[in-house]
């Protein structure tokens, strides 16, 4: 068995940190890929982070209220040796791209 750390992923939109709201798993739990791990809050919204993979939860970083920066450790999994080389990523769809208007054009009809 090997230890596989999973850092707080890039949450997009220039966010650099998130606050832990509630852990949805505990150390020692066996989790499945995509199972919700933790609820976090950013300056913009609150969200659930799904597990990047299945495995046993060895360690959780951050109690509710703690701030974790993007890239800092969030959770450590125990996985079979042959999967430890795979770096975890959050399984999420590519964020939809859309036109962004930065300021209101108030003269527009």
């Amino acid at each position, binding site marked *: 068995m090997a230890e596989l750390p999973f850092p707080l992923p890039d949450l997009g939109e220039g966010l650099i940190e998130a606050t832990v709201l509630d852990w949805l798993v505990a150390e020692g739990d066996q989790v499945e890929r995509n199972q919700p791990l933790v609820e976090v809050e950013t300056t913009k919204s609150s969200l*659930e982070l799904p597990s990047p993979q299945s495995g046993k939860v060895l360690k959780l970083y951050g109690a509710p209220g703690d701030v974790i920066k993007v890239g800092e450790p969030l959770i450590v999994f125990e996985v079979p040796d042959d999967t430890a080389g795979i770096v975890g990523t959050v399984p999420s769809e590519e964020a*939809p791209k859309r036109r962004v208007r930065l300021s209101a054009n108030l003269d527009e*009809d």
Partner: protein
Amino acid sequence: MTMMTGRHEGPATHHTVEGTDPGLNVQVFEPESPAELPPVLLIHGFASSVALNWEQSGWIAALLDAGRRVIAVDLPGHGLSTAPEDVDSYSPSRIRADLLQIASDAGARPIAAGHPSSGLDVIGYSLGSRLAWEFGATQPAIVRRIVLGGPSPRDPLAEFDLVAAQRFLADGTPIEDESTATLVTMAQASPGSDMYALLSLVEAVKEEPFDAAEAVPRQPVLVVAGEKDERIEGLEALHALVPQAQVLVLPGRNHVNAVTARAFKQAAIAFLAEG
């Protein structure tokens, strides 16, 4: 004569409403193991979206796990919906008409005794709960149960200082009214937000402000709010109008972070599973 098939979900179709296509992004999610229960319509809040309010927060996954079919709609000018130029497209009455057509096109059918998957359950958050309240009150033949998250008996958008917001956006003049300033900050922080569309929505809401007493839902209602949500002061007034409602207050949560709370999802899913 049309043959009765006993099926209470029709095939997906697409219609215009009042002669125009509302251009709203509709996403229908099918559960792997469908429960014998109506579909669930999700209505998000101001400056939010299906993605933010329901997907990234884990709601859609939780509802699918519970076997619920989910119909999620981005409000006009939000998420992947179009941002019409005319203010009328943003009026709450127009949005409610659009939602009815969307739900019907997605297969929701009027409540029919003996058909547990007939009807429509609705979950709304913030502005979405205002729309859910009115939608339930005006569509009792189709809406079966209602969950109102982060609701307010007043309409924070109706008291919005549009002129101050426009001045702030034009030259940065600080906004004096605290509620207006908070809403503008929220709108600016919202990923991909179209400020022009959001202000059009505010303008339309000011023309049709929420009057909770005007039309009151008679269905079973679950009200959920964070303990630290500043709108919680209005909860009693709202509850007085719907004495049948169950109320759940989430300890330590505010208007933003109540959305993801497990206790909220679990309570809503259990409430909407009742017959």
